């Protein structure tokens, strides 16, 4: 079963820009460790981190079908900071991984307890195989 784990952080999460070096390194090391573990267990499909929201463009098709871009991301409390797609044996395992990621260390090494949105990727069996 495939799941996507979406890590949403508060826009204020850009506070990461001013974290002390020690805390930053601990955080980066933790995330690398998670990816290593998922890979080692044969569960990792993909993991991506996304740029800060000020790099985002909102795109719509104009009258002629050409892209019309909005300069900056509109105000939003939360934004998607990164995601994992994992292939695991049961939903419990997906939640377990999500909880682990959620508790990534933040300033002072305290767990961030970020909200992680877990959703199944549409890859379930057809009805006659259930």
């Amino acid at each position, binding site marked *: 079963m495939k799941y996507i784990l979406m890590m949403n952080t508060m826009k204020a999460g850009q506070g990461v820009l001013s974290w002390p070096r020690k805390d930053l390194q601990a955080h980066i090391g933790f995330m690398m460790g998670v990816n290593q573990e998922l890979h080692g267990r044969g*569960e990792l499909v*993909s993991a991506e981190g996304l740029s800060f929201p000020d790099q985002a463009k909102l795109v719509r098709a104009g009258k002629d079908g050409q892209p019309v871009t909005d300069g900056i991301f509109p105000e939003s409390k939360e934004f998607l900071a990164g995601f994992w797609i994992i292939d695991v044996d049961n939903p419990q395992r997906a939640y377990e991984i999500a909880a682990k990621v959620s508790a990534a260390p933040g300033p002072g090494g305290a767990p961030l307890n970020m909200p992680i949105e877990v959703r199944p990727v549409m890859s379930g*069996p*057809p009805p*006659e*195989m259930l």
Partner: protein
Amino acid sequence: MTNKWDATSEHLLRGLAPQVLGAVARRFRDFSSAEDAVQEAMIAAFTQWPQQGVPENPRGWLIQVASRRMTDHMRSEIARRERETAVAAETENLTSLLVVEADMDPDDTLILLFMCCHPALSPSSAIALTLRAVGGLTTAEIANAFLVPEATMAQRISRAKQTIKTSGVPFRLPSPLERTGQLPTVLHVLYLIFSEGYTSSIGSHLQRFDLACEAIRLTRSTKTLLPDNPEVAGLLALMLLTDARRAARTGPDEELIPLDKQDRTLWDRSAISEGIELLTAALSKGSVGLYQLQAAIAAVHDEAASVENTDWPQILALYELLQRVAPSPMVTLNLAIAAAMVHGPAKGLELLRALDRDPRIAGHYRLDAVRAHFFEEMGDREAAIQHYRIAAARTTSMPERNYLLTQAARLAELLKPGCP
């Protein structure tokens, strides 16, 4: 002397994989490394044989290449240890191992099958290892079939082998008693490989390795090895009788076509007759099990010229038997469908009510999908639309969601004023 590579060669090559692995694992007494070595030999064969032709003795060729890989691996292992402790004598033992003469055991494929489907493994690990060690697939092919990166699949396989090593499974044929105990797990793994072949996500139909065919091939070879077991035959029959409808079950845009709307002229008649023949022989042995019963149900569908001509009372009776042999909420759900066909949709709805309290299935999209269908049959379009929509929101199958949304939209159009 070589033979030309043709359509049958790939089949031949994959079929040799477990035999070669058996010979190499026995000689070197190291299943895990032998399995890696055979994989390398398989990849070498897939690269070289189409160009250079199939060797006169393909099995000998593969054993030789795999054994060479093994000795290379051992030599570097020994060199590493020598640097640490200096073990000279082992190098001599090594040379004697280089003499390659196949010590074949016809049971090797069976030993490997039981080993790879060991209950200590999670289903996904057992599936991956079985496909590589018994099925002779490459890691890349397995990764492609499951739409995961090759490195991930490689890790899954190596972890599975580690689990086998830790649980100390010996490389020998399980006793008849052990075999009886473990066979359900083996058959379940084969069935999971088959059903995985039917799951689809967006774009998965493009160039995806055909797992359903692979599962049929593996089950066929299991049937050859265990010819007297009626459940093995039942499983093979079930796969053939289900796969026979493959061409009819999806439309040009991969959309799902349910059984009652399928063009039955597209069903594969030869697969159906083979399935029925296998099933008839299995049932005559008098030890009925869940695969034979499911195959029997598939056979009743396959033999009917239309959904109206289907022998629903027989299907209902078979589901009642199945509920006794292998009770599960999914069986009850299917029983409700058959009961509705025999006694009307109200009876079906009544049977579904019991499932609402069953935590194993309550909230499952199938419950709403089936309920929607019953409401539609009864003429309650509003309720049908509502349940089709709930089901669409809950399913994790993309073609199924599209199907359910289309059903809801079709009924909603009929409800609009001005339409007949």
